[in-house]
């Protein structure tokens, strides 16, 4: 758009035509105050804080609704304007309870800040304030009317941003009040966006309210550990008897790809970390019972047993199951540890997407995957399968708001009438299981159209849809776990004929993509390099077994047949999640690293209490392939990171450490000095060093040493370290992925998590449980009458 030039407070400002004055002012560092204006939400002009003087206009004008004009002369700061702003504040404070000392928002309150700036401290009013009791609207949302300044941000973010429309305004005049959709409670997606966007403490979080003051917390911006979207969440952490307690999750600095957005999990479901069932001591099975032991005993026993099995019967008798919630560094390390130390290729994880198929379909195609950010800017999106609103809330937000703000065209093909159909230009419902057929049809098979055609969509309509899609440019094609193997290849074939098309393959857990990229497969090394061959990994890692190992079902079979002598499970609960008979591994020596005594942990011979992603440093790769920094918020006493535990086991097996972790000038003594409860010390040290831009990689527990190796060896991961460490997301590429082997698409098994569940982890989140309970009760009530 053409540029417009105007003058604000004597400064020349140039901005594209159509820019709002308030935004144009920002570009030259002039901050016009506002409560109701919020970027990307509809304009209100209600709070009147942004009044400015525009020459030739008789009255003060709202900068938030004024579009800049050529030659406009604006004054943003004068006695008249100051007085106007001050009087707005006086009026607001007139009815405000002024309970700042106990208010959750105290110290982070826009009304406080504004009052400080404009000084409306003297009260002009003698009358009693209007009072209304505080209300609880949901397990996580509380509302305090007297504190509300009616900026309508909550109403808009809920409606426009989330497409939930659970908040409204009732009554009028001074009795106006924000109201929930079910008279006295909310029925919504419980995202808490309303709380975060509230400039004051009117909406407060059930998880955080009255717990602490903002300045008593340490704030750590890290990546959410739940779904595969990779939202940045800023954790508010304080010290506790257990070492630390996370008391808040939000996205106040909006620096993540998620911008404003966080769903219920990112915002509240950190509470599993302080669950009372958390393991804080290693357990060793003695006389059939898991009994507390020391770390040294545990590592010694594991090291000895693993080494014995490897040396007597061969590594192939050991199975390794990795995690979809551990860091890339841990996944890479585990993959390497299995091949190099344990000498086994029996490596797998809970697969929820067919990334190997994607990698092989996209090999050689530069820039063929879309980042999460691009989903918000793409001119057109095709969504096949999945229900992003439930399973990929950020992706749903990106799509929804892309449609709303940029008028993107959204094409949805789904077996359910998913909520995103409301944003769709075109929605086609298919029979469940027909997603692959749809891909085949798009790729050119007209025969598939016959099987697809149904009462709601005729063959011609399918053809019209395909023609429309072919006419798009820069289409982003998003698909769920319904599309695997051959279907996936077909879809890529279809998309590759569209100029600028990019793909997003949806996987369910926080680091599912990382687990795949880092090679937690029986037949694939990191970067989808085949285990058979002579990749860089073969060259650098030293001797590794060459035949494909057992996948998870294979390990189960081997366990049943008594052929699996040891099973090493890192941060995964296959017994619980994949419905595996717990007696399958009764003949195996089972080692489990986990936070809780899961269905898998209870059958273990050794259980090691693990730290979670909020308690360690490293990186995650989201489902789009965006690499992001995971920052340690603190640690819970008595736990260790999976990284450290893998290293310690390798050490106990007598492995030469530098061959596993290429750390710097450290010595064996460094890592031997585990100091019990403070064993995370080295890692914390690393966090500090990292925060200061120093990376000596002195310790074998320093994940950065492995990150170096990942960036060096895993194709597509050599992204800007500076950007990564600055907290930005860096998109990785699959263009140079290895020549991945043939795969079993049927091994993809979706997690089927909803907005209110999160695998095993979710079971330990009080926030998620209370919300899903309250939602279940309501459904029951409805169906009863």
């Amino acid at each position, binding site marked *: 758009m053409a540029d417009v030039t105007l003058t604000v407070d004597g400064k020349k400002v140039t901005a594209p035509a159509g820019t709002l004055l308030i935004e144009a002012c920002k570009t030259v560092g002039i901050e016009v105050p506002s409560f109701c204006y919020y970027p990307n939400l509809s304009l209100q002009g209600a709070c009147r804080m942004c009044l400015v003087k525009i020459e030739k206009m008789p009255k003060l004008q709202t900068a938030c609704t004024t579009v800049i004009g050529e030659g406009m002369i604006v004054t943003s700061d004068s006695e008249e304007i100051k007085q106007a702003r001050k009087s707005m504040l006086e009026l607001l404070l007139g009815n405000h309870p002024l309970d700042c000392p106990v208010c959750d928002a105290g110290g982070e309150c826009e009304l406080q800040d504004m009052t400080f700036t404009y000084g409306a401290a003297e009260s002009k009013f003698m009358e009693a304030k209007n009072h209304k009791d505080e209300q609880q609207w949901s397990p996580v949302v509380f509302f305090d009317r007297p504190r509300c300044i009616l900026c309508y941000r909550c109403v808009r973010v809920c409606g426009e941003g989330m497409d939930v*429309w*659970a*908040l*409204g*305004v*009732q*009554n*009028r005049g001074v009795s106006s009040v924000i*109201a*929930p*959709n079910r*008279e006295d409670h909310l029925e919504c997606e419980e995202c808490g966006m309303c709380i975060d966007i509230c400039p004051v403490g009117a909406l407060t979080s059930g998880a955080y309210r009255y717990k602490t003051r903002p300045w008593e917390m340490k704030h750590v911006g890290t990546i959410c550990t739940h779904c595969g979207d990779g939202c940045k969440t800023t954790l508010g952490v304080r010290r506790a008897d257990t070492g630390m307690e996370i008391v808040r999750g939000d996205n106040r600095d909006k620096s993540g790809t998620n911008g404003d957005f966080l769903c219920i999990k990112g915002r509240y479901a950190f509470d599993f970390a302080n669950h009372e069932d958390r393991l804080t001591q290693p357990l060793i099975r003695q006389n059939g019972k898991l009994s507390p032991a020391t770390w040294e005993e545990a590592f010694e026993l594991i090291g000895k047993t693993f080494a014995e099995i490897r040396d007597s019967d061969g590594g192939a008798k050991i199975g390794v199951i990795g995690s979809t919630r551990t860091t890339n560094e841990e996944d890479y390390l585990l993959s390497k540890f299995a091949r190099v130390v344990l000498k086994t290729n029996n490596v797998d994880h809970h697969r929820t997407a067919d990334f190997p198929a994607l990698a092989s379909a996209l090999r050689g195609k530069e820039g063929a995957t879309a980042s999460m950010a691009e989903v918000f800017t793409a001119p057109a999106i095709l969504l096949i399968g999945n229900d992003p609103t439930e399973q990929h809330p950020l992706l749903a937000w990106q799509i929804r708001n892309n449609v709303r703000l940029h008028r993107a065209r959204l094409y949805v093909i789904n077996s359910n009438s998913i909520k995103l159909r409301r944003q769709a230009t075109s929605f086609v419902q298919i029979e469940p299981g027909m997603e692959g057929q749809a891909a085949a049809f798009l790729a050119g098979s007209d025969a598939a159209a016959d099987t697809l055609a149904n009462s709601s969509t005729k063959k011609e309509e399918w053809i019209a849809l395909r023609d429309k899609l072919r006419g798009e440019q820069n289409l982003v094609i998003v698909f769920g776990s319904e599309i695997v193997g051959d279907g996936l290849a077909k879809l890529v074939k279809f998309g590759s004929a569209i100029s600028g098309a990019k793909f997003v393959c949806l996987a369910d857990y926080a680091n599912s993509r990382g687990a795949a990229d880092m090679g937690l497969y029986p037949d694939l090394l990191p970067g989808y390099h085949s285990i058979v061959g002579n990749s860089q990994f073969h060259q650098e890692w030293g001797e590794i077994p060459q035949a494909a190992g057992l996948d998870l079902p294979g390990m189960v079979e081997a366990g049943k047949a008594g052929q699996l002598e040891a099973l090493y499970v890192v941060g995964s609960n296959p017994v619980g999640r994949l419905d595996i008979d717990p007696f399958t591994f009764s003949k195996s020596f089972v080692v489990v690293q986990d936070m809780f005594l899961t269905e898998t942990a209870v059958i273990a011979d050794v259980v090691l209490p693990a730290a979670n992603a909020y308690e360690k440093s490293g990186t995650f790769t989201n489902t789009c392939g965006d690499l992001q920094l995971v920052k340690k918020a603190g640690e819970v006493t008595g736990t260790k990171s999976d990284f450290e535990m893998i290293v310690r086991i390798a050490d106990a097996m007598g492995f030469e450490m530098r061959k596993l972790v290429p750390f710097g000038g450290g010595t064996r003594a460094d890592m031997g000095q585990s100091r019990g409860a403070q064993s995370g010390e080295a890692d914390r040290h690393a966090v500090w060093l990292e925060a200061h831009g120093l990376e000596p990689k002195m310790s074998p527990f320093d994940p950065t040493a492995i990150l170096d190796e990942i960036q060096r060896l895993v194709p597509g991961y050599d992204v800007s370290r500076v950007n990564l460490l600055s907290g930005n997301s860096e998109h990785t590429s699959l263009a140079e992925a290895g020549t991945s082997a043939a795969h079993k698409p049927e091994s993809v098994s979706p997690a089927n998590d909803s907005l209110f569940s999160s695998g095993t982890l979710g079971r330990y989140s009080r926030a998620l449980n209370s919300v899903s309970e309250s939602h279940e009760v309501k459904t029951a009530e409805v169906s009863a009458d």
Partner: protein
Amino acid sequence: MVPHYPTKRSALVPTLLYAQDEVGFLSDEVIAELAGRLDLTELEVRNVISYYSMLTTKPRGKFNVQVCTNISCLVRGGEEILQHCAKKLGVGHKGTTPDGLFSLEEVECIGACSWAPAAQVNYDFHENLTTEKMDKVLDECRMKA
């Protein structure tokens, strides 16, 4: 003639008023029904209802006595009429008599300024009121009941 509009929701306010005249107030059922018919959420319907002073979600008396006390009526004794009604009916602003016959409301200008003081009983205007005239109006209501 049914008024019609390019959007469904435009019919909301008149429809609410009709429904209220039928049922006496806007019950949860009415709200749910109208929301369904006009493709709105119940919340949206409630937001609208609560905005308009003639719409109510609570039952009122059979005769809703609305006395204007706004400026033109004020200077011609509107408040006396209101107080008189309050005494006679034994209820205050927005109160309803125990027999459910009357409710009383102090209202804003009803457009009868040149014939002040004035009141409306349901939709009927009563103008140039005196306390005696008001008595008669109320008595007639009682007879009709």
